[in-house]
């Protein structure tokens, strides 16, 4: 018998948000659904979203699930997690968030949480008109023919969940759980991803060391600050409806102006110190301070 948490059993016996959402053609409201799995695989989830278009906010989420105890509980948990969030906030939901909400899942059942995360992505991509199939599966070679799992999906689940064994990959996305002929292929991929990650962290470490070792010229420093703001900080703020612009750099003081939602946001100081200053100290120089103008 599976060792399910109290929360899993509670959401299974008393699921919330089960059902579909009728599209009443209300103004500013979009109703979409995303699907993952199939009856052949033994689990399938259809996630319905009611979205307020002007705010890109999820007003309601409902699920229909064919699957086991933990598949039903994971679906129900997902709808609770994402209700009230903006689409961008919701997209940050990981399968681990779903598992955590449930007080954990047995390792062999982690694929239920992955299914939830994928259905959410499918629904939002569908709303935004992004072809999810092409986005995901056509990009790469098919590794597991039994369950139709592609290389990008396996790579992603390895990276997002810090997986280290082939068995974990099977537990999370089912790949390798059928005939088993792709197990060697998954192992190769696992080694490849681990090597890539090791190389990347070594390169980042080397870059950081280099930056620390050689003092930057003022123009190099300004360029680097601008680069970090553009590449690393702005995308985060834009996702939350805000933005930032570099105003001036004098010595170690970086002057920025906060735009959009950030400008009058109550947590703008936190944004300033947390998101921007920490990042710049980390990537450019530890002596930097950030002020808003």
């Amino acid at each position, binding site marked *: 018998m599976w060792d399910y948490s109290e929360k899993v059993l509670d959401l299974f016996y008393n699921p919330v948000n*089960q059902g579909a959402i009728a599209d009443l053609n209300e103004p500013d409201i979009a109703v979409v659904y995303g699907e993952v799995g199939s*009856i052949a695989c033994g689990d399938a989830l259809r996630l319905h979203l009611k979205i307020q278009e002007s705010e890109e906010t999820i007003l309601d989420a409902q699920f*229909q699930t*064919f*699957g086991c105890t933990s598949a039903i509980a994971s679906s129900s948990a997902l709808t609770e997690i994402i209700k009230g969030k903006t689409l961008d906030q919701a997209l940050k939901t990981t399968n681990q968030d779903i598992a955590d909400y449930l007080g954990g899942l047995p390792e062999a059942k982690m694929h239920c949480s992955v299914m939830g995360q994928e259905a959410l992505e499918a629904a939002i991509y569908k709303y935004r008109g992004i072809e999810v199939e092409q986005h995901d599966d056509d990009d790469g070679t098919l590794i597991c023919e039994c369950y139709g799992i592609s290389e990008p999906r396996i790579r992603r689940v390895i990276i997002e969940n810090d997986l280290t064994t082939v068995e974990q990959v099977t537990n999370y996305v*089912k790949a390798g759980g059928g005939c088993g002929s792709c197990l060697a292929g998954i192992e190769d991929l696992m080694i490849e991803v681990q090597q890539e990650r090791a190389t990347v962290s070594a390169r980042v470490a080397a870059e950081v060391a280099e930056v620390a070792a050689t003092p930057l010229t003022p123009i190099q420093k300004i360029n680097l600050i601008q680069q970090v703001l553009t590449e690393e900080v702005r995308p985060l703020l834009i996702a939350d409806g805000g933005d930032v612009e570099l105003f001036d750099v004098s010595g170690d003081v970086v002057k920025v102006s906060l735009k959009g939602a950030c400008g009058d946001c109550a947590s703008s100081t936190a944004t300033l110190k947390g998101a921007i200053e920490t990042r710049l100290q980390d990537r450019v120089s530890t002596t930097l301070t950030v002020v808003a103008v």
Partner: protein
Amino acid sequence: MVIYLDNNATTRVDPAVLESMLPYLSDLYGNPSSMHSFGGQVGAAIQDARAQVAELLGAEETEIVFNSCGSEGNNTAIHAALAAQPEKRHIVTTAVEHPAILSVCKHLEKKGYTVTYLSVDRRGQLDLMEVEAAMTGGTALVTTMYANNETGVIFPVEQIGAIAKECGATFHVDAVQAVGKVPIHLQSSTIDLLTLSGHKLHAPKGIGALYVRRGFRFRPFLLGGHQERGRRAGTQNVPSIIGLGTAADLAREHLATVDQERQLRDLLETQLLELIPDCEVNGSGTTRLPNTTNIGFKYIEGEAILFMLNQQNICASSGSACTSGSLDPSHVLMAMGLPYTILHGSIRFSLSRFTTEAEIQQVITVMPGIVEKLRAISPFNNDQSDWLQGRDLAHSV
């Protein structure tokens, strides 16, 4: 109180069985192989138990070898059969055997043996023509189950045995699910080797027996002492052997009244089929064990059904992938070529002589609500569900 309808998994130890065992767990602790009369009386009790098991099977005492479980019986039988005719390198078995047969066969394939896995039809039944066609001059062993553990489907073992004999092959039958549920007369049978397991017939776990036809060139699997006439080394599990003997006697008595069990099974089956739309009995239309029913509830998943039943204190089992922890559903139901809509939602109820009509009525009462609740959650309602369109619901066997 628990409603236990998972008797093909294991059964409760009959109180009379336990009673008979107790002296051998306390005062009568002698070694049956000892020369003193203190141990000798235990040896005599084992002989009595052997006679009881032999009688249940319609065999002779000397043909019964006690061992530890059904898996040991199956492993031993296969190895003994191959050792008896070492020049032959071919095995015929079926696609729906227990893992204790299939895993051994897969292992032997790696060692250079050839194995034919006979297919079954939609009812779970074998085709005798296919058995005949599979036989070669090099076939050392034909091994099939008597009755299937998941569906209860009974194979025509005597006809299969006749084909095996004609070709000079040893015939082994895994009768773990059949013993005590159908009458067996080995003296007038084509069976050379037959496996049984104690805990499927109200004896404890950890005891089994292998029937070895008199005159069969048997090679032991476990080497050591001379116990079991040199055919299975190791000091005997005395209390459990005594228990198995008692259980065999009780099973023989029960065979006369097994129709009552069949009636309860039929009541469960017909009522559920009548009350619940879109479900069917897997293995119907052919001979089946009187205690087993395997019902496919379309559009919902088996593990979820089991947890719902569990909440009502009802124990059953499922061949769904999610139950086993593997990702594929039951190899038995897959081999029958059931559509995916049924494959994942099949539940086995297996009764015993302890099952009461009130218990069956309770299942009949709660089951429709469980199915309805899960179908309300499922995105599939019928074969016309939009999500199922354009998909191949049958899978290739």
